[in-house]
C-alpha cells in the first residue's frame, strides 16, 4: 500500500467521523454503526482504525471525549464535535468536493 493511498483513506475516515458527529455526541460503537449506515453498507469501516482515528482527532482538538451513560445505562465514552472540528469539517468537505468533481471531470474526459 503506497503512502498516498493510505493518506487519502485516513483523511476520508477522519472527515466521515467528523460528519457523523455533526448531529449529536456518540460513543465508539454507535459511531461504527452510524458510519456503516451512512455508507449504505457499501464499505465497512475497519474497527481497528476507528479508535486510533478518534484518538488522533482528539489530539488535534477537533473532537472532545467525555464519559457518560449509554441508552441502556452503560458507562460509555461519548465523542462530540468542537468548534474547530466543525470548521475543519467545512474545510475538508469543501476540499473533497473539489477533489471529487475534478476526478469526475477527468474520468469523463477520457
Amino acid at each position, binding site marked *: 500500500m503506497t503512502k498516498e493511498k493510505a493518506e487519502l483513506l485516513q483523511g476520508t475516515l477522519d472527515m466521515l467521523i467528523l460528519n457523523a458527529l455533526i448531529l449529536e455526541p456518540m460513543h465508539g460503537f454507535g459511531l461504527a454503526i452510524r458510519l456503516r449506515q451512512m455508507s449504505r453498507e457499501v464499505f465497512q469501516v475497519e*474497527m*481497528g482504525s476507528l*479508535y*486510533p482515528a478518534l*484518538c488522533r482527532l482528539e*489530539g*488535534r482538538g477537533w473532537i472532545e471525549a467525555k464519559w457518560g451513560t449509554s441508552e441502556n445505562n452503560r458507562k*460509555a465514552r461519548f465523542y462530540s464535535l468542537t468548534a474547530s472540528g466543525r470548521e475543519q469539517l467545512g474545510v475538508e468537505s469543501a476540499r473533497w468536493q473539489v477533489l471529487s468533481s475534478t476526478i469526475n471531470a477527468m474520468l469523463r474526459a477520457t
Partner: protein
Amino acid sequence: MSVLRRFAFRLSAFFRREQIEDDLSEELRLHVELQTESNIQAGMKHEEARRQALMDLGGLDQVKERYRDERRLRWLEDAGSDLRHSLRGLMRERAFTATVLTIFALCVAANVAIFSVVNAILLKPLPFPGAKGIYTVYDSYPKAGFDGGISVPHYLERSREVSAFAESAAYRTVWFAAGKRGTIQGIEAMATSAGFFNLFRSEPALGRTFTETETVAGSPHVVVISDSLWRTRFLGDPAVLGKVLILDDNPYTVIGVMPASFHFPTVHPVAWVPLVFTKPEQTDLYRHAASLAGMAVRLRPGVTAAQARLQLDGLNERTLKQDPYAKLVVEGAGYHPVIDGLHPTMVARIRPVLILLQSGAFFLLLIGAVNLANLLMVRAVGRAREYSVRRALGAGSGRLGRSIVLETLLLAIAGGVVGVALGLTALRFSFHFFSDRLPFEMSVQPDGRVCAVSLAGAILSGLALSAPVAWQTLKENLSISLSSESRTGTITRSVQTVRQALIVAQITLAFILLSGTGLLSLSLYKLLSVNPGFRPEHVLTGMVDLPVSRYPDAKRLALALQISERIQTLPAVSCAGISTNLPFTWNAGGAAISFKNRKPKPEEAAEPHPVISVAGNVFGALGVPLIQGRLLGDSDVGVPQKVCVVDTKFAQRFWPKGDALGAEITPDSGPNPEYYKIVGVVGAVRQTDLADDKEFGTMYVPYAGEKNVMIALRTLDDPVSLGVALAKIVKEADPDLELHDVSLMENRVGKSLSGRWVAVSLGGVFAGLALILASIGIYGVLAYTVTQRRREIGVRMALGAQPHQILRMILSFGARLLAIGLPLGVLGTLFLGKSMGSFLYGVRPSSLGVFLSVASLLSLAATAACVIPAKRAAKVSPSEALRAI
C-alpha cells in the same frame, strides 16, 4: 500552534499512562459487548457472536497498540527504556564500566587541571579594562645576555616623542622599612610615575593617586597603600587618608588606598610612591643604566604595534647619535629597544612550561580516547548477538544506533563529571606551585567556563567515540551472527583494521609522551649532578635590611661587620660571613667592568658581571675554593688601596695565561673611577640557574655598607637549629633589624629546579598512565582476537601445530603492531622534540638512549599484554575447540 497542541496532548498522556490504558480497555470492552449483543440479536450463538465481534475489531491488542501509537510520545518512552536498559547493562558490567570511567575521568582531570592554569594565565586577558591595548617597552642587550628594564633618559624621550603612545608610565621596585622603631616591617613597594594608575584604568578605593607635581624632586612625600597594608597596618580605618606612614624613617602622607583587586606586576608591592628622577639620572651618561623595572604604554586607538615599533626604532636611530655608548652597546651587546604586548611579556617565562604540560595532558587525552574507542568496540562485539536479536525483533538501525550513542554518552558524562571534580581537586593541591610564580593576582580558581568547556568536550568525545562502535555494530551482518550457532559474533576485516590502527596510534602516542618525559627526566638528572661551584649542604642563609636613612654609611658598615663577627663565634659554626648577593637568591644583574692600562674589546666591555660585596668568610661558608692568591679579609675594609677577588671564569676570560693577580679593574664607568687590585681568584659559582653556564664571571669586593645584607653560615651539624640564635644576634645588634627569608642553601638551589620537577613528575604521571592505557589496549585486542580464532587455532593444533608455534603466532601479531607504532613514535618525537629545546639540558631531542629505553619499555609492556592471551591460545585443546567453542 497545532503542533504544540498535539505535543502537549501526547506529553500529558506520557504522565497519565495508566489512566489512559484503563479508559481504552473500558471503551473497547463496551464496543465488544455491544457488538456481541447485536450479533446475538442477529441470531448468532453467544460464543460465536463474541468471536465475530473481536474479529470485526481486528484484535484487541492490535487496536490498543495502534491507539498507543497515536496517543504517545514514542521516542520519549524509547529513550526512557533505552536509558534504563543502558544503566542496567553498565551496572551489570561493573569491571568494564569502572575501567572506562577511570580512564575517562583521569584524562579529563589532567586536562581540566592544566587547562585551568593555562586559561587563567595565558588566555584570560589581564584584569585591566582594555588590557589588549597595553604594551611594554624595554631595552634589550641580547649579546650581553641582558633583557628588560629601561633607563630614565630612554623612558622620558620615548614617552615624549613617540606619538603612537597615548599614555605611558614607568615604575621601579623599591624596598622600605615601614613603621616606627619597634614595629618595623620590610615591605616591597613600587615607585611609579603619575600616569601609572590611570594607564591601568584603576581607581583607588579611597582617596586619590599621584599628581604630576608630586613626582618632582623636593615635593612632600605621599604614598598610596594597598588593600592588604590598609587592613594590617591601619586596621581598615576608613579615615586613613592624611595619616602618616613611616618609610625608611621618612613620614609619608597616605593619600589613597587601592582596591584588593589591583595587582601589578605581582601581588608583592603593597605601597606606591611617586617616582622621582634625579638630575644625573636624566643625562646621556645614564642611557644604558636600566634603573627602571619597566615602561608601560597604551597605544593610541587605531595604531598598531607595528606602527609603534617603527616610530620607536626611528626615535632610537636619532638618539643613538648623541649616545656616548652607541658603538659599544650596539656592536658589543646588540642593543635595541623592544615593544611587546604587556600580557605576553609578563607570562613569557611560565608560558613554555604550561604549553609543555598542556600538550602532555592533551596527548594523554588522545591516548585515552583511542583506548576507549577500542574497549567499546571490543565490548560491542561481545554484544553482537544481543544486537542481532534486537534487530531481528524489529529494532531499526536508528533505534540501535541511538541506544549505542546513549550508552557512550552516559559513560562520557559520568566520566566527565568525575574528571572535572578530580581535576579541580588536583588543581587545589598543586596550586601553590603556580601561585608564587604567577605574574598576577591570577588566582587560578575553579572557572565556570573551564568546567563547561571540559564537560562539553567530554560529551563531544562521547559522541565521537560512539561513532566507530555504532558503525561497527550496524555494519554487522544480521544473518551471520544469528546463524553461526556457536560463535559470539564475528567482525569484518575492515573493523579489525580500524582496531589495529587504533592500537598503532596508541603505541605511537605513548611513545612520544614517554620519550618526552624521558628527555625531561634526563635533563633534570644532569642538572642535579651539575656542580654549582659551591657546596650548599649544611649552609643556613638569611637576610637583613639596613634602612638607608637611619644609618649613615659608616654606621651600617659597623653594624654589618658586628653581625658578621658575632655569627662566626656561634658554636657549631665552622665558617660564616655576609654578602650582598648569595647564589640562588635573586639575579644580581651586573655591571660592565673597566680595566686600568687595558682597552677592552667592544664585546667585552658590554658584558654584565655581577659585583658582589662580601665580609667575614663567605667563601668558606659557601665552600667556594680559593684557586690563586688570597681571600678578602676584614683588614681590607677602609684601606686606601682597594682590593678585590674575581672568579676563575672572569680570570680566564681576560687573563687566559693565569696572570690575573695584581691587575686593576673597576665596575665604575664614571670619569674618575677608583680601581680595585685583584688579590685572589676563587672558583666560579652558578648564581641563579644550574642550567645557565653563560654567566660572565663575578667580581667580589669588600663590603662597604650596602643596604641589603645576606648572611651565610656553614655548620657542623643540622643548620636549622641555628636559625633562632641567628635571629637573636641580629636583634642584639639593633632591635629594629629583622632577620627574614631564612632558608637552607640546599632549598634555594632546589627551588630553582621546582618548575622542572613539576614538569617531570606530571610528565611521569602522564607517561605512566599512557603506558598502562596502551597495554590495556593491546591486551584487549589480542584477547579478543584469540577468542575469535579459537576454532582456527583448534584446527591448526589438530593438524599438528605445536603450542609454542601458536604462542609465536599470537606474539608476532603484537610485534607487528609494535613494529609499525615504534618508528612512527620516533618520527613524532623528532618532530615535536624541537619545540622542547629550552627544557633540555645536556640531551638532544634525538637522544638514542632515550629512544632505545622507551622502545624497550613499551615492547616489554606490550609483550606482557600479549602473553596472557597468547598462553590462553596455546592451551586451546583441539578437540574442545573444534567441538564446542
